């Protein structure tokens, strides 16, 4: 690997690059898909290539290829330099990178049971057992169960002498039960819509106990068909970790990406209401109970690594401290513009994409006092919302609307009847300011999503979220006739 990165970097430097880095990435993937106890698909994938990023005349260029040989390294490095010179033809401010020590070392995700060594028969058998348990529930129309594993081996080298090697492994699985009657389609997913994912090995899948939880979720999907429509109005809501992490993701994760704040995502995903003047003035983002960090060192998180894709060491960065907005997710290019050094937030979706600021593990830290169960017991009247069904937020991350798969009524501190089609909506900072309880460490879990989209060309990232559940007051639920 080092021969190829050296060749690409030498070529880029000889053609005028003031800085260059090269990543060689090999990605292994495996997936299993089952529908209604039928094995629909078993697939494995392997992708390998390299990307060269250069800074020439203060402008960026990037090129990539799947062919790993010296001739291609020369061609790709030369193309990256040519592209950078074209970029320089429409440049107003030269790119300046922060200083950081050369990155050297290795990082490997801790894995107890290598998912690529577990037999296919075992993995199919485990997933089939869960799917059969769900589809066997009377009234379930169809089920979908999925398993996925990804291992990324990446080598990073830069003209400043950096050279790191990392092997990162993620796995996930889910079972989803669907019940349909007339125009009503209800779904219950376990452990999460789209899969319960984490960093580690097959031990995470065994821990989910898919088969042991599948039937209960099938029964809930059927029960929702005859459940009353969730009412509209202002009420108290308790978000369980499975919904709360989506709320953190959309309303804190994305708006604290500093490249968004500076407009580089404006034409696609939008910008952010958390402008830099708000950090300077100590903007109140949430209640005193709200502390949110971007922590690339958190155990088991899908945003955990040794170094980001610019060679910046993994670290934890405060975003919101005791309710006050205090920091951003940053890169070597953006951090100096707010007088800071990079927080190590740059990651790329494989060898053929340029690194962008991506969430690492955006965690709402637990608050000592009440577990999630105790928060419910402490609530006289409200709704307990779980498992995301849909999400939408405006282009500055202010007005959001989420739907969950199910709502449980809370009366006198106890969970009661079900409501179907629950939605809730609000303005980000008003919502977080209304938070009056956050679960303690006993309720804290590391969750995450394997499909966070950003960038053009589009990139999908695996990101983590540590959450423990929380309560919010005076939340608007329902949207009129729907």
């Amino acid at each position, binding site marked *: 690997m080092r021969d190829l990165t050296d060749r690409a970097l030498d070529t880029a430097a000889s053609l005028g690059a003031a800085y260059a880095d090269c990543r060689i990435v090999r990605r292994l993937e495996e997936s299993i*898909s089952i529908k209604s106890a039928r*094995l629909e*698909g*078993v*697939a*494995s994938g*392997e*992708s390998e*290539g390299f990307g060269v990023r250069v800074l020439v005349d203060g*402008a960026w*260029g*990037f*090129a*990539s*290829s*799947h062919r790993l040989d010296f001739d291609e390294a020369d061609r790709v490095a030369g193309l*990256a330099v040519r*592209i950078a010179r*074209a*970029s*320089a*033809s*429409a440049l*107003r*401010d030269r790119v300046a990178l922060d200083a950081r020590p050369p990155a050297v070392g290795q990082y490997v995700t801790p894995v107890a049971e290598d998912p690529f060594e577990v*037999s*296919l028969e075992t993995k*199919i058998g485990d997933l089939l057992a869960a799917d059969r348990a769900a589809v066997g529930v009377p009234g379930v129309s*169809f089920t*979908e169960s*999925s398993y996925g594993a990804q291992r990324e081996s990446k080598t990073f080298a830069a003209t400043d002498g950096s050279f790191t090697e990392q092997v990162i492994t993620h796995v996930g699985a889910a079972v989803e039960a*669907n019940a*349909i009657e007339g*125009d*009503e*389609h209800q779904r219950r997913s376990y452990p999460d819509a789209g899969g319960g994912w984490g960093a580690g090995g097959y031990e995470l899948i065994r821990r989910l106990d898919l088969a042991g939880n599948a039937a209960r979720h099938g029964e809930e999907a059927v029960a929702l068909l005859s459940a009353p429509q969730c009412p509209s109005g202002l009420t108290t809501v308790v978000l369980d970790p499975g919904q709360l992490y989506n709320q953190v993701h959309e309303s804190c994760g994305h708006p604290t990406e500093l490249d968004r704040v500076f*407009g*580089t995502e*404006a*034409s*696609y995903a*939008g910008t952010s*209401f958390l402008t830099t003047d708000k950090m300077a003035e100590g903007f109140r983002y949430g209640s005193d109970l709200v502390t949110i960090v971007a922590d690339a060192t958190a155990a088991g998180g899908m945003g955990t690594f040794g170094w980001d894709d610019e060679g910046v060491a993994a670290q934890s960065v405060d975003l919101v401290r005791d309710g006050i907005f205090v920091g951003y997710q940053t890169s070597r290019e953006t951090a100096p513009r707010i007088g800071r050094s990079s927080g190590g937030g740059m990651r790329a979706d494989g060898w*053929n994409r*340029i690194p962008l600021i991506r969430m690492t593990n955006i965690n709402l830290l637990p608050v000592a006092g009440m577990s999630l169960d105790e928060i419910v017991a402490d609530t006289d009247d409200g709704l307990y919302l779980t498992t995301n*069904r849909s999400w*939408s937020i405006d*282009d*500055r991350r*202010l*007005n959001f*609307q989420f*739907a969950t798969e199910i709502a449980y009524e809370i009366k006198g501190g106890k969970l009661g009847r079900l409501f179907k*089609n629950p*939605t809730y*909506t609000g303005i980000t900072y008003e919502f977080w300011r209304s938070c009056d309880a956050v679960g303690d460490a006993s309720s804290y879990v590391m969750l995450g999503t394997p499909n966070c989209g950003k960038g*053009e060309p589009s990139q999908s990232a695996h990101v983590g979220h540590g959450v423990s559940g929380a309560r919010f007051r005076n939340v608007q639920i329902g*949207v*009129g006739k*729907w």
Partner: protein
Amino acid sequence: MVSEPTQLVDPGERSAQALALAQDIVTRALASGATEAEALVTSEDAALTRFANSEIHQNVAETSIGVNLRFCLGRRIAVAATGRTDDAGLRALVERAAAAARSVEELEDWGGLPAPTGGHPNGPSAAGYAAATAEASPEFRADGVRAVIAAADAAGVLAYGAFSTAREGIAVSNSAGIHAAHERTTSQLLTVQMSPDGGTGYAEAAATDATTIDAAAIGREAADKARASEHPISLPAGEYSVVLEEYAVVDIADMLGYLGFSALAVQEGRSFAEPGRRVGSDLITIVDDGSDPAGLPMTIDFEGVAKERVVLVERGACRDVVYDSQTAARAGRTSTGHGLPAPNPWGPFPLNMVVDAGATPREALIGSLDRGLLVTRFHYTNPVHPKLAIVTGMTRDGTFLVEGGRIVGPVRNLRYTQSYLDALAGVTAVGRERRTLKGFLGSAVVPALRIDAWTFTGTTEH
């Protein structure tokens, strides 16, 4: 070993090389015991120049190839994929697929790999291929970006956006006789422009030939709208008549394609589509047509089946949905050529939707609106109730109040929660002009629409 198709220049030659690679893989799979085999070769040379704050900040290019092998042992099916096309890579690919196929259970209703359909010749096709796009340089894209920025400068606003060009190839060979390939080019220029006084505007164009995109005109359209949308007023949520520009209409087409116009959605009971069911006004006709030169043509699907023109909605009534080989086998008919790469638990999708143009000029769409909103585009849309096609999302980059047939001023963005089926039923006029746009499902050719009632359910601060 055969050459990689991405190293060649002529599209016909490249298709032939990709087909030879696919055929080689099928031969290897059959020699390894497969009873049926299918190889899909996808290749791409893609580049994108991205700009923000009126300067280029990201500029990328990639050369990639992917090989997908569907390996069948009777009714036991497995898929393996790789980006390695050397002999060792292909051997490993076949071994992985074969090992997986031996480990899986039988698929009871497996209908077999698709065979060539009558009337659609096998072989390579280059419909929708423009050499100028395939050969577009970083300097060409930078020229286009500078034209957009110049328009923004002239209006005193900042430009953000992306200019992409790509050559895309797919080639499919299978043991049932499919031997088909398609090479095409695509390009897209989009821009958001922002004024110092809070206005934003949007414009976009997509084409097979990048040289037909008028970058300066795209820049002017977005800049004018950014200026026009400064200092918006707040309107309360509620029901309004709307004129949706093409950039918003493409989301309706895509979302209905995603939620309902797929045979798998119908077979699983989660689609609204039933033959004859009225889902739109008489003014609405939607087809999927991979050969329509107005769009971004794609003449075969990822199973190598020639794409048929499928009428999805005709004068407001559902007619048909799209099929791949597996959903077609279950329904006892042939694939319409809308399959995705195997394995595919999501089912077939219409990737080339075309909405019929109407007779109403843009000015008349607005001019006949007594009181309502002109919406440029939607943002972050997501289904709330899939079977009723109830979707939530935000307006973005230019929302205007119209009174007495005249635009009277900009309004702050609004959240909507709206059944797209009810919206189609409420269409009272269809634009005469259409735009070719890229949506989240593929490409679409769509007109603007006037709709008598649209439910806005929330407001925001900008």
